[in-house]
């Protein structure tokens, strides 16, 4: 049979339409499209796609079920390896993971694994398919700190193994970055995130919002006083970084976390109907080149009154860490990309609102520690970009609260928690994973860390019990 290189493309909202709304951009595959795409899979004897998946999902196994037109079976199969397929299908950088290692990638048209995963995840949501598993209670309690992707995945795994799991969340809503960070048009909150969390609730995972471990209770007390046999810390890395350039404290200079939290968690995208305001003016500058920068830029563009959003990135397009799809979508929607450009100062109005970013142009020099060519300032290249608001999306640091309040918890010089390969920290029975260990990374890596820690916790606790 000849190779089929006609990769199915996901239907999308038209750029001209979607830049004025917050509804989902990608519309998902129809059953016909999904089966057509599934039929392109070669079902390799040694499937290299699995090697590319951070959580080792048995990809051909679930694709076969799609091809057989038994989506229910596909759901069952994918859930063996991944408890949040509707989320991963939407936000994973498949092009550098499973789709990169798919054999058809050599021909330039890998199977659209991400789209198929989403298809299966959405089917489960639409048909309200409960996770079938017979949980045998083992009488042990485990605490999970943080309800982002890493915490959710750890909680789900442990619950299935019979543990009574309590997830502690500092915010008033569950989901961590899935809720406060990733915008509605890329990851719908009620239709997807909430449903995936409800699936865990149905399994019996308990959630406690408004509980900041490190302040409301201490990590060590969870073990010593509250009777938890183990603790998994998955608090993320959400402590925003600034560039420390003049004018960063001007009004309407936001960290990406603030901007996105206002927009997503506090629903400021609903305008005057939301209690929490956001101000974008007519022209917005976004600093950075990662997925968070793309999310911020595309959120800003969708706000009424916004005419121009400039994305200011100090390296060239090739070095941008954002997913290719996000960059493509941002371009289609009309984001003004200013590559090889960096702000050096923000200028303000008499009232203290930002009015312009003073920028310099860069060129690429020798490779730096990250292996990417280091941007070097071009002398005399200064110019101004007029803006009414700025979003600084240059990355995050480790949140210090848990480290400050947990004596004996070893952290590295950047404040990230040090663990062994099983996620065990310097304190017995306290594990950690996700961004608070790795530094800012992806949803799927955080989920993988959560699952690994769950398995390590189970192994350790079973060993002790026997």
């Amino acid at each position, binding site marked *: 049979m000849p190779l089929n290189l006609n990769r199915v493309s996901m239907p999308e909202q038209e750029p001209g339409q979607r830049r004025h709304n917050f509804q989902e951009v990608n519309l998902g595959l129809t059953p016909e499209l999904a089966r057509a795409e599934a039929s392109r899979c070669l079902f390799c004897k040694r499937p290299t796609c699995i090697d590319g998946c951070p959580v080792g999902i048995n990809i051909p196994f679930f694709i076969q079920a799609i091809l057989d037109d038994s989506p229910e079976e596909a759901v069952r199969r994918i859930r063996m390896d991944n408890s949040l397929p509707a989320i991963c299908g939407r936000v994973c950088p498949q092009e550098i993971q499973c789709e990169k290692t798919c054999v058809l990638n050599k021909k330039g048209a890998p199977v659209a694994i991400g789209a198929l995963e989403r298809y299966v995840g959405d089917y489960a949501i639409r048909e309200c398919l409960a996770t079938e598993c017979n949980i045998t209670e083992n009488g042990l309690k485990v605490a999970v700190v943080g309800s982002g992707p890493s915490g959710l995945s750890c909680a789900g795994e442990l619950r299935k193994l019979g543990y009574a799991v309590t997830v502690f969340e*500092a*915010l*008033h809503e569950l989901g961590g970055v899935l809720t*406060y960070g990733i915008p509605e048009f890329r990851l719908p909150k009620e239709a997807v995130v909430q449903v995936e969390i409800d699936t865990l609730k149905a399994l019996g995972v308990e959630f406690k*919002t*408004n*509980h*900041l471990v490190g*302040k*409301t*209770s201490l990590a060590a007390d969870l073990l010593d006083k509250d009777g938890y046999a183990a603790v998994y810390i998955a608090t993320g890395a*959400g*402590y*925003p970084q*600034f560039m*420390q350039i003049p004018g*960063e*404290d*001007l*009004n*309407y200079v*936001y*960290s990406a*976390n*603030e901007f996105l*939290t*206002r927009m997503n*968690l*506090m*629903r400021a995208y609903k305008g*005057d109907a*939301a*209690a*929490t*305001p956001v*101000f974008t003016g007519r022209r917005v500058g976004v600093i950075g080149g990662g997925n968070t920068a793309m999310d911020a830029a595309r959120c800003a563009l969708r706000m009424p009154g916004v005419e121009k959003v400039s994305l200011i990135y100090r390296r060239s397009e090739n070095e941008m860490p954002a997913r290719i799809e996000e960059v493509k979508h941002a371009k289609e929607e009309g984001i003004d990309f200013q590559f090889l450009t960096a702000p050096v100062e923000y200028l303000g109005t008499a*009232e*203290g609102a930002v009015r312009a970013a003073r920028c310099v142009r860069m060129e690429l020099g020798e490779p730096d520690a990250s292996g990417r060519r280091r941007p070097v300032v071009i002398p005399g290249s200064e110019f101004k970009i007029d803006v009414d608001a700025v979003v600084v999306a240059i990355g995050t640091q480790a*949140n*210090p*609260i848990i480290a400050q309040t947990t004596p004996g918890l070893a952290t590295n010089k950047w404040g990230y928690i040090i663990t062994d390969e099983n996620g065990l920290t310097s304190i017995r029975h306290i594990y950690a994973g996700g961004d608070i260990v790795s530094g800012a990374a992806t949803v799927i890596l955080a989920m993988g860390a959560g699952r690994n820690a769950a398995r390590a916790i189970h192994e350790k606790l079973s060993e002790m019990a026997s």
Partner: protein
Amino acid sequence: MFELISKNLLAPAVWRYTVKAPEIAAKRRAGNFVIVRPKEGSERIPLTIVSSDPQAGTIDIIFQVVGATTMDLSETDGILDIVGPLGHPTHIEKFGRAAVVGGGVGIAPLLPIAEALKQAGNNLTAILGARSSEFLILEEEMAAISDGLLIATDDGSQGQKGLVTDVLQPLLEQGALDFVLAVGPVVMMKAVSELTRPYRVKTMVSLNPLMIDGTGMCGVCRCRVDGQTRFACVDGPEFDGHQVDFGSLSRRLSMYKAEENKRREARN
């Protein structure tokens, strides 16, 4: 939902609530605050914990109705979300002769700090300021724990007519103070800090910037302190008043004035 045990009107539009929040009550120390979201759809706002009763599992908060969120709060019979205790507790030690200076509802966060300073063995003078006698809160509680209570009102309806700084100045002049802690409107904290600076009396202020999460995640509460960017929620909320950039703070506090007015008017 956090149950409301009692509601008391202390002054026009100023409420004291006792709320059931056992975990917070058990952990809270002087200077800590909470983030409150009164009901579904409300903003998150920071409020200082005025007192707590760990046995009863309750905390007290005091707030003034100024905008849509505090209106929500004044109308509710239970608070949807409360998280805390947040921020570093006040650094308490025996300084010697200490003065606490409070203005308006800033007297509320001042009360637990004053108590802690007194308990640590300081000779404590409390200086309270308000627009008029009607707006003065917690006078009796402050009198009970301080060695001296001085009052200033704008209209002279109680205590000395004038500002808290007018009352503070003679004490500084006499060399009668080793430590000052001020909580109130930004202009007041700035004036107190400027006043104590030439006398080299250590002066702490409790900052009240905008906040959303209160856990170090969003950075809207960032302040300039000694030329550095500090997050009031996790690095503060108390800082050395001689190092704080009050101009930046008051500018950032005004960031959403127009939006806040719009939302308040929409409610009326």
